[in-house]
């Protein structure tokens, strides 16, 4: 008796599982009335929910035969996720990827070659920091979406209280002196988590060093050069002037939330971080300012990593025409202006720079962007970021490890990762 019941129940459950799924997977694809539904993957926090809604609404109104289904992806583990998607038969139709990730996916043959559309998209005016990493082997796969680089976000009230003039901070020495002053009993001079490796990269570039260099055909990690060690030394000095955790990065905990909750005088962030701060603590509205990361001398601002995203269309997408329409609209001038203004991003074309001219955060960003750099443009670099020995190195040094030894160890790890990953 019981056995029969058991069998019956399981048959039901299994059948239920099957039907629940086949019903679900039918949701994508062309429906009878001629509308196409495209799946779009955007990254968490790259655009606000409000802007997303506005854009999708506008897009669907302009193209009534296309419906858009946006899924927000987490940065953590995104490489594997995109890989699995590209290799599947039923890939999403548009994917946002970090500008440094495009080369790796392009090399694998999983992306649609968009070279013949470059002119149509106004490619001659694209930001180099986005367009170049989006190309591989002379072909354009990634379409520039937006760019951003890091600046210093500071609390105007805390600066005033400590008697520090942000406009006077032009060199690293002045920056350290000011931060020391700000790091009083009541507040943190700067909240700098121990593993913000993009910031370290900037300091290393300032000293004339690099993360990795190519000699002959092979890439080699170069954190152990004297220049790179000086960069780390400065990071350590700065990091000590606040309570940033030595063993995590800016995402954990999200530094903007930390700034919103506590008495933090400065963070290093893209200007968009200021929105998150005020969102979490409306009292700070109007109390946040921006200045470019100071360089070694007043003549040259600090080097920064140009971060940003490209849009790609998987070769396995079944609706490439509709997907291209989507990419064209989102990277087109009209929406780029709105996007840059809404999110304080650098728009994808140099000709659109005026869209953010009145934005103090974006103009601070523009100063840094002039001396912007990128991580090594090779498919192997993605393997380095996946495991990221640089973060381990930073934590080791900040918690009292021998910088020289740890740097050598980490450089070897970078070398090995770049060799294995290409």
């Amino acid at each position, binding site marked *: 008796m019981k056995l029969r019941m058991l069998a019956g129940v*399981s048959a039901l459950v*299994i059948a239920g599982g099957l039907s629940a*799924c086949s019903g679900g*997977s039918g949701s*994508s694809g062309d429906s009878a009335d001629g509308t196409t539904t495209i799946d779009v993957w955007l990254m968490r926090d790259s655009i606000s929910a409000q802007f997303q809604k506005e854009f999708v609404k506008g897009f669907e109104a302009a193209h009534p035969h296309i419906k858009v289904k946006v899924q927000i992806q*987490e940065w*953590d583990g995104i490489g594997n996720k995109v890989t699995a998607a590209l290799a599947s038969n039923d890939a999403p139709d548009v994917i946002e990827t970090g500008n440094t990730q495009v080369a790796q996916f392009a090399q694998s043959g999983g992306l649609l070659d968009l070279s013949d559309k470059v002119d149509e998209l106004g490619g001659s005016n694209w930001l180099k920091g986005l367009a170049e990493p989006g190309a591989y082997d002379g072909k354009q796969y990634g379409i520039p979406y937006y760019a951003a680089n890091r600046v210093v976000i500071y609390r105007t009230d805390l600066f005033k209280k400590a008697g520090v003039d942000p406009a006077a901070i032009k060199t690293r020495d002045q920056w350290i002196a000011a931060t020391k002053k700000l790091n009083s009993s009541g507040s943190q001079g700067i909240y700098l988590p121990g593993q913000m490796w993009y910031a370290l990269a900037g300091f290393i570039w300032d000293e004339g060093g690099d993360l990795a260099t190519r000699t002959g055909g092979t890439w080699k990690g170069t954190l152990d050069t004297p220049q790179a060690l000086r960069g780390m030394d400065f990071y350590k000095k700065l990091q000590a002037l606040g309570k940033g955790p030595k063993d995590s990065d800016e995402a954990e905990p999200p530094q903007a939330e930390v700034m919103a909750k506590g008495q933090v005088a400065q963070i290093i962030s893209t200007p968009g971080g200021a929105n998150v701060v005020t969102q979490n603590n409306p009292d700070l509205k109007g109390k946040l300012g921006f200045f470019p990361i100071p360089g070694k001398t007043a003549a040259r601002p600090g080097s920064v990593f140009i971060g940003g995203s490209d849009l790609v269309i998987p070769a396995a997408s079944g609706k490439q025409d509709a997907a291209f329409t989507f990419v064209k609209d989102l990277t087109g001038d009209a929406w780029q202006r709105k996007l840059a203004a809404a999110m304080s991003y650098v728009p994808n074309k140099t000709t659109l720079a005026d869209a953010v001219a009145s934005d103090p955060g974006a103009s601070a960003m523009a100063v840094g962007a002039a001396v912007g750099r990128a991580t090594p443009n090779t498919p192997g670099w993605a393997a380095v970021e996946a495991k990221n020995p640089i973060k381990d190195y930073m934590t080791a040094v900040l918690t009292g490890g021998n910088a020289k030894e740890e740097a050598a160890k980490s450089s070897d790890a970078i070398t090995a990762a770049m060799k294995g990953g290409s």
Partner: protein
Amino acid sequence: MSTARLRLRRAPLHAAAVVTIVLCLFPVYWMITTAFKPNRDIQSASPQFLPHTWTLEHFRTAVDADGFALFWRNSILVTLSAVLLALIVALGASFAVARMRWRGRRQFMLLVFVAQMAPWEALIIPVYIISRDTGMLDRLPTLTLVYFMMTLPFTIVVLRGFIAAIPQELEEAAQVDGCTRMRAFRHITFPLLAPGLMATSLFGYVTAWNEFAYANFLIIKHQDSRTLPVWLSSFQNVFGTDWGATMAASTLFALPALVVFLLLQRHVTSGFAAGAVKG
């Protein structure tokens, strides 16, 4: 020996028992209480072992997160189907092994033992490729099948022990009375086997409920088919600093397993171990 002296002699034993109990329960306790504490108490310099004020706010955050109910349903569906499937298939196989004599029986059992060591992490890529080529990506039944196979060998091994422990004479007596073999199994063996089935299903239940790697890699585009472990891990990404919410999510995730285990405690401790004895 007087009771007082007995008690004194047992004091070290009881002390050891208390220490063990505390060590076992503390992480569970800490998870649950953290989930009920307001944020300012969680992030305070001196932790409170009992929450001063209780709040449901973290549970609200967790339940309100995208798709929580849906993923809960997916997990239940996948887990139950996998466990039931494994039980049914294992019941047949273990009956054949424990009660019948046939050529290849030994080899069959050896295969089952070897299958218990299967390197599932290494099979992700081939399983991904096979599912892709057969159009089974992004679908819960694929996960069900994988979990079914993960739990099947252990289930057979344990069930075989239970079946072997039931005196065959009972079945035979029934057959002498004119029952068919099937009927004898159904009316005599099966009811005796119920505790064993329950104990065995727990293992499968925990395995399937917990599985993360396959759920993460085989469900790609159709995110409505995600399961709770994947949700919990992405929840941690989104609410990483919010330890209260993370603990509330963990509690909600652990709750079914904790409740089921506590309810079936007797079977777990006696029955499960007894099965493993043979396995």
